[in-house]
């Protein structure tokens, strides 16, 4: 321990007073350049917070921060009253539901490729999963508009709606308009889009389980599934949780596919099949058409709220990853 401390102290001393060769103009210039470029990223991130807050401040002043966040009316046309609550609710509902739908299949894929599949098959599956992450959001969006949403409407939403209409009419207000573009469609697409992230991070967590753990369990006579359930999953639990939170962050920020499929309705209540909106989707839909300065400012304030939420989710995930020391979980 003490030697480690000593080395570190020596390095610090050396850096404070580097030998002559490191004080030549070349090194000074290079260090200056690199540090400037590094600082520019720091400034950029800070400026994002300040700019969004600054541009949204008119709306935040008008309604108060909590008044804005909790406000349920979004009326850019007549009353000019803006509240972000519907979009906050839409974002949280769709992304949490998408995570719940996708997490079990994602973990299953990770377990299958890490523990069951032969190497060549695992490689192919890995590449295909990464391919899902590579498909641009708008491409999934156009597929959702013209293929998935009509298909879901005809095979799922309408039959369920008809059944509810004849047997349980009290369900109809909860189900909502089964037109195909709505909360459920958006959630399904979101679930599909975050699977690669959850899978990659879960796989990292599973890989970090020591081989001895598996062997010990096998030696006790456990079947393959029992090894996974008793030796691997409890050990990788934290990493899987961190991966899930990071994927949630992805889902919260996902914009285009959701904006194309959620149906864009700015008033509560949102229903299961009916249209809704999320924070990114309302920015995409209204930003280019916002005329009133208060409207523009309110959209920026929504951006600021989104920034805060994304920040909290990312910091929490970073805390978990550090605590359970899994690697960054890079998806290509």
């Amino acid at each position: 321990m003490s030697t480690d401390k000593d080395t570190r102290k020596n390095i610090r001393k050396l850096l404070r007073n580097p030998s002559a060769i490191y004080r030549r103009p070349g090194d000074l210039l290079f260090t200056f350049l690199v540090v400037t470029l590094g600082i520019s990223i720091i400034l950029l991130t800070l400026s994002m917070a300040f700019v969004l807050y600054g541009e949204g401040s008119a709306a935040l002043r008008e309604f108060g921060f909590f008044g804005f966040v909790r406000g349920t009316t979004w009326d850019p046309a007549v009353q000019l009253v803006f509240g972000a609550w519907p979009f906050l609710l839409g974002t949280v509902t769709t992304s949490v539901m998408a995570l719940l739908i996708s997490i079990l299949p994602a973990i299953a894929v990770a377990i299958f490729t890490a523990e069951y599949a032969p190497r060549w098959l695992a490689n192919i599956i890995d590449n295909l999963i990464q391919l899902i992450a590579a498909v641009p959001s708008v491409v999934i969006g156009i597929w959702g508009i013209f293929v998935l949403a009509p298909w879901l409407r005809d095979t799922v939403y309408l039959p369920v709606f008809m059944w509810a209409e004849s047997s349980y009419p009290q369900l109809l207000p909860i189900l909502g308009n089964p037109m195909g573009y709505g909360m459920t469609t958006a959630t399904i697409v979101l679930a599909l889009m975050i699977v690669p992230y959850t899978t990659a991070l879960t796989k990292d967590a599973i890989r970090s389980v020591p081989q001895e753990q598996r062997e010990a369990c096998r030696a006790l006579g456990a079947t393959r599934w029992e090894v996974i359930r008793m030796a691997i999953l409890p050990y990788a639990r934290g990493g899987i949780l961190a991966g899930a939170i990071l994927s949630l962050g992805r889902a919260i920020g996902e914009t285009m596919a959701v904006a194309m499929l959620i149906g864009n309705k700015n008033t509560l209540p949102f229903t299961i099949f009916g249209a809704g909106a999320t924070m990114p989707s309302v920015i995409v839909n209204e930003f280019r058409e916002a005329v009133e300065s208060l409207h523009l400012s309110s959209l920026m304030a929504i951006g600021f709220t989104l920034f805060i939420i994304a920040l909290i989710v990312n910091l929490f995930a970073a805390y978990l990853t550090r605590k359970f020391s899994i690697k960054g979980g890079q998806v290509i």
Partner: protein
Amino acid sequence: MKTMLQRNIRDRFMEGLLVLSTIIVLLPLIIIIAHVIIHGIGALNWDFFTQELGSPSRALQGRPTGLVHTILGTLVVDFMALTIALPVGLGAGIMLSEYPDHKLNPVLRVMNDTLNGMPAILKGLLAFVLIVKPMGTFSGFSGGVALSFVMLPIIARTTESALMSIPWSIREAGLAIGLPRWRVVLSTVMPAARFGLVTGTLIAFARAAGEAAPLLFTSFGNNYLPNHWLGMILGPVDTLPQRLYSLAISPYSHWHNMGWAAAIVLLVFVMLTFATARFFTRQKF
């Protein structure tokens, strides 16, 4: 106590469930790619690559339309973004890996991760406020800046991990023969890590090339080729992801078909970049 048979049946059952889940996850990918190709291949003709889009009536009257301005615009905006992001990202990556004792390093790491985790749409809003508002017009340049915000944190992060993977002994060898630090970084560490650097850059490029959200408020879109090449930089420019969105939500069936064709082009562009990145990952010295 369960019998061995019960446990074995359970084991088999779970294995089947895992295989089934894997298939369920992979099926949509194949369906999406198949649909994109089936719907779009018909609209991919010579006109698509040589004509500009024009007004909707142009398509309704059956006159030739295409997306040549979109494809050119995409290339201009994407490479502009790369030119902006590459030096900054490389610099930040070098700072993270080669100057680990610098006081600002932990701050930079947190800020870079934060920027990376931010939704792309917020980067569009930031570029709108920083570039579009002062310039007073939507422009290809602001689109490039917005996309560079997407690329930056990825390049910085991948550069850091590529340089970190080079053993310290290489740096020590360079210092031992009297090279200054900047020569050590530029002439020994970076060449040794070149495949990692290329991979990281390509990944960042591909990720940004598929983004539409930041471009909606910055490069905005344009149905025509600009009259002068400077219009690609200083005026509103069309890009594939943003055009694909506009085509998909338009009410014209001819434009829907063009949207599918644009999806093929975009998909091929992004996938080729990723495939190249994968190819470089496999390269060893």
